[in-house]
C-alpha cells in the first residue's frame, strides 16, 4: 500500500523532465491533439471575421451595408430568428436528401460499372471513354435538358447529383481494383480461386480506401449538384439553392448569408461524414485513414 503511494507520488515528478515536443504525436492525449489541430484554422477564422467586420464598417456606407451585413447580424438571423432558422433548416434538409439519394445511386452505379470494367478488358474499353465524356461535358449545360425530359422536381435533381458525382466513383473504384499488388494476386492464384472469390476477398477489400477517396470527392460534388438543381428546377420541395435565390431577390441579406453558410456546412458535413465512415472502415489497416504526425 505504501509502496503504491510512493510510486504514485513519484510519477508526476518525472513527467516534466521529458520535453513535451519529444513525445510522438500518436501518444498525445486526444483532447490536447484536437485542440492543437483546431487552433491554426481557428486563427484563420479569426482573421477572416476581423476582415469582414472591417469591410462592413470601414468600406461600406450605412446605406450600402446590406451588401455585407456584419457577422453578428448573420448569426443572429441564422441561429436565433425562429422563422429564418426554420426556413433554412428545412431547405438544407431537403437539399441533403436530394444529395444523399444522388450519392447513394452514383456510388452503387459507379462501383458496379468499375467492377464490370475491371472484370473484362472489352467492357472497360467500351465504357471508359463515355465515362470521360461524362466528366468533360459541362454538367450545367445539360441540366436544362434534364428538366425538359424528366420534369422539374425531385427526380431531376437527383439525376443531376448522380451525373456530377458518378465519374470520381468510377475512376477511384477502378483504380483501387486494378492496383492490387501482384504478390497478393499470387496468393489467390496458387489456390486457383474463382473470379468471384478473388473479387470478394481480394480486389474489393483492397479497393476500399480508393472507394472512400471517391466517396469523399463525390459527396461534395453531390451537394453541389443538389444546389445547382435547385436553381434550375422550381417544382417540388424547395432546397437551399432556391432559398438563397429567394433571399437575394428579397434583399434579405442577413438571411442570404446565413443560408450560404448553411449550405457550406452541408458540404462540409457530407465530407466529414464520409471521411468518418471511411476511417472506421479502413483506417484500422490503411494509412490514408490514419492520422499523420
Amino acid at each position, binding site marked *: 500500500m505504501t509502496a503504491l503511494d510512493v510510486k504514485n507520488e513519484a510519477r508526476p515528478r518525472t513527467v516534466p523532465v521529458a520535453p513535451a515536443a519529444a513525445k510522438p504525436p500518436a501518444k498525445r492525449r486526444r483532447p490536447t491533439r484536437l485542440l492543437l489541430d483546431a487552433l491554426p484554422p481557428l486563427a484563420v477564422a479569426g482573421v477572416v471575421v476581423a476582415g469582414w467586420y472591417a469591410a462592413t464598417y470601414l468600406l461600406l456606407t450605412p446605406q450600402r451595408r446590406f451588401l455585407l451585413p456584419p457577422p453578428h447580424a448573420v448569426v443572429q438571423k441564422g441561429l436565433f430568428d425562429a422563422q429564418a432558422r426554420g426556413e433554412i433548416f428545412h431547405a438544407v434538409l431537403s437539399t441533403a436528401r436530394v444529395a444523399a439519394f444522388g450519392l447513394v445511386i452514383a456510388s452503387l452505379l459507379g462501383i458496379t460499372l468499375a467492377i464490370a470494367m475491371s472484370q473484362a478488358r472489352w467492357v472497360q474499353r467500351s465504357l471508359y471513354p463515355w465515362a470521360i465524356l461524362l466528366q468533360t461535358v459541362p454538367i450545367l449545360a445539360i441540366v436544362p435538358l434534364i428538366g425538359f425530359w424528366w420534369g422539374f422536381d425531385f427526380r431531376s435533381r437527383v439525376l443531376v447529383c448522380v451525373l456530377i458525382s458518378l465519374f470520381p466513383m468510377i475512376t477511384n473504384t477502378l483504380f483501387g481494383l486494378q492496383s492490387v*499488388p501482384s*504478390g*497478393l494476386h*499470387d*496468393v*489467390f*492464384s*496458387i*489456390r*486457383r*480461386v474463382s473470379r468471384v*472469390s478473388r473479387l470478394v*476477398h*481480394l480486389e474489393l*477489400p*483492397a479497393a*476500399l480506401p480508393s472507394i472512400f477517396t471517391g466517396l469523399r470527392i463525390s459527396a461534395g460534388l453531390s451537394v453541389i449538384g443538389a444546389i445547382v438543381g435547385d436553381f434550375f428546377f422550381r417544382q417540388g420541395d424547395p432546397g437551399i439553392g432556391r432559398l438563397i435565390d429567394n433571399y437575394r431577390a428579397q434583399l434579405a441579406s442577413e438571411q442570404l448569408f446565413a443560408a450560404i453558410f448553411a449550405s457550406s456546412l452541408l458540404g462540409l458535413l457530407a465530407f466529414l461524414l464520409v471521411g468518418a465512415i471511411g476511417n472506421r472502415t*479502413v483506417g*484500422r*489497416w*490503411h494509412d490514408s485513414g490514419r492520422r499523420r504526425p
Partner: protein
Amino acid sequence: MTFVETGQGVAAAPAAILSLQQVAKTWPDGTHALEEVDLDLRKGELVTLVGPSGCGKSTVLRIVAGLDAATGGQVVVPEQLPGFVFQQPNLLPWRSVVGNVELFLQLDKAPADARREAVDDALELVGLERFRDHLPHQLSGGMQMRAALARALVTRPELLLFDEPFAAVDELLRERLQEELSRLFAARRFAGLFITHSVAEAVFLSTRVMVMTPQPGTIEEVIDVPFPHPRVAELRFDSDFVDLCHRVSRSMRRAGSDLEVENR
C-alpha cells in the same frame, strides 16, 4: 552445350510426389529461362535450388505451383494444392493474423470448427498464438513471415514451396527463421522445395542442394546434405557443414564461369 547431372541414380524408396522431367520454359518474349530441368521430390525431403538471380529458380517454382506453364518436358505434381511461401509475406493488410491464416480454409469453405483447429495448430507451430488478433502492420517483419508460413501450413500440404522467403530479413533473424523451419520440417516431414541464392541457407536447410546454372537455367550439380533435422545454430560452425558450403560455392562458381564463357 550443358550436361545435366541428375545425381539420382539410387532407386527411389517412396514414390516421388513431385517430379520434373526435362522441363523447359521459354517466355513469350523469347527468354530461354529453363532447359532440361530434372527433379524428384519425396516426402521428408527438403530440396533447395541455389543459383544466381535470373537463373530461373522462381520459374521452376511457378511451374510447380501452376502459376505458369512449362513449354517442354513433364511435370507431375500432387493432387493437393501445394503451400507457397513468397519472398514477401504478402499478407492481406485488412485481415488479422487469424484472418490471414484461415483464408485458404475459408476459400475452400471448410467447416468452422475444423478451420479453428487447423488455424490454432498452424499458429502454434510458428509461435504466433499471442498475436492472433494483430493486423499485419502491427507485426515485425519476422512475425509477418511466420504468419505467411502459418498460412501455407494451415491446409497441411504435403508439398511446400518457398521462394526466397528469408531474403528480405536481416541476417540474425534469417538464421533464426531457418532454425524454426528446420524444426517445423522435422515435425511435419512435408516435401519442401526451397529457393535461395544463399549457399549457407541452402546447406543449413536442405536434405539435398541443387545448384542451377543460368541462361538457360539447368541443374549443374546435386549435393546431398546428411545432417539430421531439426538442425541447430551450432551446426553452422561444424567443419563438415563449412566444407559442404565450400563445395556448393565452388559448384556455383563453375556455373557462373560457364555463363561468362557462353557470353563471350
